[in-house]
């Protein structure tokens, strides 16, 4: 058992080394704010950068991150054409609060809900907030766990690099 | 084609439901083994409990109900464990919950098998399923008892006791019923029933609750024999001499000096309510293969 597992691990490490490419989005369905199904690979921004931020209505740093970016979102869009997609991992306990919270906060992001954590698991997320930056080919080129005051500046630096 | 597959599996699944009508209780008839000369498979149900555990009497009742159906094939042992559920109350709250039922071996087995760590009540049926599936909630006991009763009997145990004053001489005769080999231990314990004392039962504080088969003492836990090969009709005898006063004092000292929040109130044993429980377990996986019970004072 152990031998098999070790050889599996070795093969994986070798494979990851030999596959030096950026990661694509997994083909998983989430739901829109009007309860329709949406496959995450269908995200579009005409080749411009996309930021995907996983959050939850009960996660304070997530809300801080998204509220702070909301203040400068218009400027970011003017300068780079970036689109921010906020994916909520709220389950049926707090799902009803997602849309009212988003609207009351006056966010202009594209919001989706990952009901049972399928997308969260497919993308290897264990804690929120977890933010990803996608390039024009919708590949993940940068990611960041957690949020502290000022992290939005680093995110914007990364977006600008792509927009060049 | 895919339409048909999914719709078909769909419809099939939806048809799977049962509704039973009352009366729900059925006549059990007699399921006990009747031949008293041959050895039958007996089961040890270890019920981990505590006198301030309000859900525990339900488990004790379950044990009694299983005993009612299968008779002498079911042998119960109650182990009072944990600080939360078995420690005696402070003397300022006397006479409520002053007794300390806990024993050194109850705690050792609780720590080894991780019973109260998950919650009380909890128990084991012949310690089957160690190390991952041995702890069973009371609703799971019956199913495992039924599957255990179907197993073959490898050992037959006969207990004889001789009591004078506070001294008891206990003789255990183990007869081998099949050619087997393995590493087995023979355990001999003393338990006491009909102890009237406090117990929380659901939302009530019951002053005169009848505590049964509470473990009092572990007398011996030794290798069954030097060799690991056993042949049919072999007979192994072990004799133990004990002094009840000494054993009682040991428990009192344990409660006073070692048990968490103990108060030394662990005595007042009644020999006429005590039984000897002997069982054989497999040293490699803890499973109990045979158990027997006999009154101490015949």
């Amino acid at each position: 058992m152990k031998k098999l597992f070790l050889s599996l691990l070795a093969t994986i490490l070798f494979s990851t080394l030999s596959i030096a490419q950026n990661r694509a989005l997994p083909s998983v369905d989430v739901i829109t704010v009007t309860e329709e199904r949406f496959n995450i690979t269908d995200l579009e921004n005409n080749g411009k950068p996309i930021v995907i931020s996983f959050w939850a209505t009960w996660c304070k740093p997530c809300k801080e991150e998204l509220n702070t970016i909301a203040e400068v979102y218009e400027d970011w869009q003017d300068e780079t054409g970036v689109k921010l997609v906020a994916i909520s991992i709220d389950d049926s306990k707090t799902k009803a609060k997602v849309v009212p919270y988003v609207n009351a906060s006056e966010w202009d992001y594209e919001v989706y809900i990952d009901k049972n954590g399928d997308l969260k698991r497919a993308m290897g997320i264990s804690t929120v907030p977890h933010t990803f930056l996608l390039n024009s080919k919708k590949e993940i080129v940068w990611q960041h766990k957690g949020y502290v005051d000022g992290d939005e500046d680093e995110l914007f630096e990364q977006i600008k690099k792509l927009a060049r | 084609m895919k339409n048909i597959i999914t719709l078909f599996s769909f419809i099939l699944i939806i048809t799977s439901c049962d509704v039973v009508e009352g009366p729900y209780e059925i006549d059990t008839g007699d399921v006990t083994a009747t031949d008293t000369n041959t050895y039958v498979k007996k089961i040890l149900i270890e019920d981990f409990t505590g006198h301030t555990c309000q859900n525990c009497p339900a488990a004790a009742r379950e044990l009694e109900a299983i005993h009612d159906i299968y008779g002498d094939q079911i042998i119960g042992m109650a182990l009072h464990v944990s600080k939360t559920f078995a420690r005696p109350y402070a003397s300022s709250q006397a006479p409520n919950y002053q007794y300390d039922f806990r024993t050194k071996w109850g705690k050792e087995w609780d720590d080894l098998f991780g019973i109260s760590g998950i919650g009380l009540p909890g128990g084991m049926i012949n310690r089957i399923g160690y190390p991952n599936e041995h702890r069973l909630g009371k609703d799971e006991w019956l199913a495992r008892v039924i599957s255990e009763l179907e197993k073959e009997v490898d050992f037959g145990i006969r207990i004889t006791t001789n009591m004078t004053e506070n001294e008891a001489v206990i003789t255990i005769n183990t007869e081998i019923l099949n050619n087997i080999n393995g590493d087995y231990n023979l355990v001999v314990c003393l338990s006491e029933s009909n102890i009237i004392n406090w117990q929380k039962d659901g939302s009530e504080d019951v002053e005169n609750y009848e505590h049964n088969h509470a473990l009092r003492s572990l007398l011996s836990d030794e290798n069954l024999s030097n060799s690991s090969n056993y042949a049919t009709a072999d007979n192994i005898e072990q004799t133990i001499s004990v002094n009840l006063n000494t054993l009682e004092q040991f428990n009192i000292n344990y409660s006073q000096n070692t048990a968490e929040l103990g108060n030394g109130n662990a005595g007042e044993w009644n020999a006429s309510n005590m039984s000897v429980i002997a069982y054989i377990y497999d040293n490699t996986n803890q499973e109990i293969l045979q158990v027997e019970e006999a009154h101490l004072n015949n």
Partner: protein
Amino acid sequence: MFKKITYTFIVSFLALNSFAQNNSGEIHGDFDLNMQSYQEDKLIGAKAADEIILNNAYLNINYTKGDFTAGLRYESYLNALMDFDDSYKGNGIPFRYASYTIDGLEVTVGNYYEQVGSGLIFRSYENKGLGADNAMDGIRLKYSPLKGIYLKSFIGKSRTYFTYADGIIRGADAEVNLNEALNLESKTKIIIGQGFVSRFQADINPKFKLPQNVAAYSTRLNIINGGWNYSGEYAIKLNDPVGSLTTEVNNYANGNALMSNLTYSKRGFGIVVEMHRVDHMEFRSERAQEKQYIINYIPTLTKQHTYTLLALYPSATQTEGEFGTQIDVFYKIKKGSLLGGKYGTKIIFNYSRINALNGGSSFLNDNRKHNPMFISTKGEELYYKDINLEIYKKINKKIRVTGVIAKQSYNKDVLEGKTPGTYGIVESTIAIADISYKIKKGHTVRIELQELLADGGEGSWSMGLAEYTISPHWFFAVQDMYNWGNHDVSKQLHYLNVNCGFLKGANRIAIGYGKKRAGIFCVGGVCKEVPSSNGFSLTISSSF
């Protein structure tokens, strides 16, 4: 035997793939490690661990190539942390799966997670923080035959620690988006769904007739129009007696649950009104009444609090019977207005109240029959009540303030499973001030001051937290909880804690030292008891 084949298959598949030329397969995963040391501390009741350090670790690996995905998870408990059940022991690969989509039919074999509707009759999910994982092992099919119609069916066994429960669980779900299916151009969207789950377990009970196939149905309706959204779900579970030999324990009554919520929102304002009624609705993968077998999910109808003292006495759904209501209001006072100030002010109001059902939950056996009233709030035993108001205001470019006041009523006997009459209802009043100050670019200090005033339970508490963060990599925090109001003077203790961490990209490392209070940690409707502890903690998490 089956395990060996699975692993050999995965290893050789990956090995072959890593040598392929135009390989578009990808391997990704994540790693989590949580290690703690336990030293004895008699004052707070913390026990030392024999092993000194306890450790939980997880490694997820997923392989994707086109429409095919496969993966596994390695879990290690050497030994499990003290707040985890003892049954989590050793190492293993308890999660492995392969999934393939062809022409819209998605087939998954092996382990999977699934939810029917909102989870009232079935939810298989994982939450590592709680030690909850009831993954299914079997086969799942998903298919959309026509636009707007979504079908899924599954069969399998439910995971319990490192093994699987006895019952065989079968489920099916159909959801129809009427607007998509019928090509309606209406502004009002309607979605209906019907789910079904049944469990098979043999009846070997010699004393009672038990149903071998226990079924549960749930119907749901969702109506959306502009800023309005109504969502309702009704579930029933047919006879599901526990299978005890004691007559009073076997309850043949049908269980039911109703969830109904209405929300309205527009820019700057949102309101959520929810209710639920639960009656004998715990559904398990086996007949025994043990929490590790629960396969449905009835979330607690209360706010998920993040501030420590607001979550000191958390509520948990009483699936045997409860009736609850909850209201949330979100409002942003416009910037420039009098109360709004320069940046606007946010107000969040929440109210929730949960009480028992009239006369207890539904019951049916040969001797007794009871069906509680549908709605009854006056005179029923209160389980939980929570009124709270949160105000957030950005004062200037450097200072942001959040203030919270709350009043909670907590029925400690019922919610913690203690003997009725032992503790009664704990009333607490809570006030919180959370101020963050930006020293300079990237450097921020945040201070939290919390106060809980109560007479019952453990009495009053104070909590102070100071956190210093340096973007984008560092954080440092010091926290102290002080139980100054405890009636037992020897328990008026400080729980001091220091934490620091480093984050870079997808990696996070945090080290902490200090005392943790014994308590209940709840997420959703699931709670776990956490014992008090004293020692070091180390957490590492990473994705690749």
